[in-house]
């Protein structure tokens, strides 16, 4: 074989290996999610594919686990609680986080790095320590076993997502636009709502979606602070997994996968909208 042909062969082999490796890692990342979806339609209460499923026999599939959710008032209460808590805490986190991020993005912010570190810290502090501290403290002021207590806890945990996304958005924001607005006679409030807000809205919405997803998936503070009236979807799943894992859990998981895919698509579309395709250097 001639020299160039050999090199060409080697390049092809290398490319094949690297593609194979990448496919394997993607398989590791995605297979667990992909497997849940068909299994949630299993007609039998098993966690493996029955022979009927493998031959695509319609008898092997059923919606019984989805009917289980629909007929169980506990799941309905959990969905209601999750939505109420996630929407309230997202709202609070977005308002507080956006204001703070605007302050952090200004060049005259004193001790910026220090405050930034404090505001992001709920992301890295071990959740058991945060939840344990809240448990004692909120109990002493009567907030344990209330919706408000969990909303405040989830606001705390959602704040870093808003701050991170918003400071990143604002770092690309041209402050001269505000100066231009005020030179044209806009007062600071008008300039904020008519100039700043429309420009940073995509970043703000992504941050809010992150905070929403974080609250919607949070279980540890609910375990510490919540009573029977504050059971959320993750809390229901938690006891489902711990006690007797039933295929109903798989049906819920499938619905959550669909839901989070929609959230992800929303964030990705916001990103496209925010960054013009030519400058998509991330």
């Amino acid at each position, binding site marked *: 074989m001639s020299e160039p042909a050999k090199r060409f062969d080697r390049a092809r082999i290398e490319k094949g290996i690297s593609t194979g490796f990448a496919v394997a890692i993607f398989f590791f990342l995605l297979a667990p999610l992909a497997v849940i979806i068909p299994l949630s339609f299993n007609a039998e209460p098993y966690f493996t594919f029955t022979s009927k499923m493998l031959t695509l026999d319609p008898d092997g599939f059923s919606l019984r686990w989805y009917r289980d959710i629909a007929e169980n008032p506990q799941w309905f209460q959990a969905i209601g609680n999750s939505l109420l808590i996630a929407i309230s805490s997202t709202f609070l986190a977005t308002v507080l986080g956006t204001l703070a991020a605007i302050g952090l993005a200004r060049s005259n912010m004193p001790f910026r790095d220090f405050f930034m570190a404090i505001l992001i810290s709920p992301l890295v502090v071990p959740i058991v320590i945060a939840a344990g*501290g809240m448990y004692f403290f909120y109990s002493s002021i009567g907030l344990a076993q209330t919706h408000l207590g969990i909303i405040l806890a989830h606001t705390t945990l959602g704040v870093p997502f808003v701050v991170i996304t918003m400071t990143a958005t604002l770092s690309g924001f041209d402050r001269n636009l505000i100066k231009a607005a005020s030179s044209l006679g806009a007062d600071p409030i008008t300039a904020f709502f008519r100039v700043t807000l429309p420009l940073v809205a995509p970043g703000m919405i992504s941050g809010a979606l992150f905070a929403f997803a974080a609250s919607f998936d949070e279980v540890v503070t609910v375990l510490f602070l919540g009573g029977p009236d504050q059971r959320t979807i993750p809390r229901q799943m938690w006891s489902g997994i711990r006690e007797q894992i039933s295929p109903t859990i798989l049906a819920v998981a499938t619905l959550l996968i669909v839901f989070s895919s929609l959230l992800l698509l929303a964030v990705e579309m916001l990103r496209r909208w925010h960054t013009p395709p030519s400058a998509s250097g991330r």
Partner: protein
Amino acid sequence: MGTAVAVDGFQLAEQFKRSGKRARRGTFLLVLPLLAFLTVSFILPIASMLNRSVEDGTVSQILPRTAAALRAWNGKGRPPFSAYSALADDLVQAQLQDSIGKVATRMNFERAGMRSLLIKTARVAQTFEPPYAQAFNAVDLQWSDPEVWGTLRHASALHTAGYYAAAVDETRKADGTWIEKPEDEQVYIMLFQRTLWIATVVTLLCFLLGYPLAYYIAHQSERTRNLLLILVLLPFWTSLLVRTTSWIVLLQTNGLVNDGIALIGGEGARLELIHNMTGTLIAMTHVLLPFMILPTYSVMLSVPPQLTRAAVSLGATPWTAFWRVYFPMTLPGAAAGGLLVFILALGYYITPALVGGRTGQMISNMIEFHMKTSLNWGLAAALGGILLGGVVVLYIAYARLIGLNRLRLG
């Protein structure tokens, strides 16, 4: 004329300074609401919990006379007679006020058996008559052991290092010196070591899987890149509980993976892949992998491809070009991802609780146990204090070396 300019200039500078100050105050006011909120909702709660790790009012509050009498004793030899009569009075009071259970439980953390000893003695303390020492010994001969009194004496201080000592498997002798606990009672050092080990292994696994994948994605066309990146973000956005559920489904003894293994190696080949350390490692790597891929990928995108080409044109083999040029330039991204993965892994709770079984538990699970089951809040706070200390040091290192503005979410 000249002086007037100087005065004007001075005033101007003064005005600038003042308006600058006002603007700074305005900027700070934007951050203030969130800062105030976090102080009340997050920082104060954690601080007051950590305070429990050194605070120790129980014994001196419920047994105040005993505490005073024992403070006068140097802890050597026999306790003073005044301690016996003081304890008799205090126990009668505690029995009447129903607080004996609390102090007995507290004392049991110091020394096993103290709970039943105190409760048993308090029940009959009302009948005690001088000489008290003999009355105590008549109830239980343990009261003749100076070590019991020494334990009481140490526990009646207002502050204690005892919880931190217990958190590193040390115990106190009656004379106040610290020694290691007997080996079969040592738990926490081993748990801390295991936590560090799990975090290290998970970080390494994330690097071994994440770096090549980031490399692969970064070297595709822009369209493919964006598509592949969404595939990385999909598990990132999926509920942690959903992902943990999937791993249980996949890895359990009759799960899909084991069905596959049985198909190849026969029924006897089934492995225990979940509810142990293996399960914790697999599930945690899966959850934390995107935190490694994303920063590595974004640094790789910023490396100009000409650099490796230049290296090759200068005679380097592709491997040398990668190793000497590309890898050092992308290392900061991998380091940022790795440090974040490590920090997050140290405090992991949910995954080990659900798939860790007995051998895959981490320190967070023990903290939760002491908070909610054994109710030894002081020890929980001490274990939490040590864990939080480690995390804070690494977090500061992250902020200093990498910069918090480099934290990106997808």
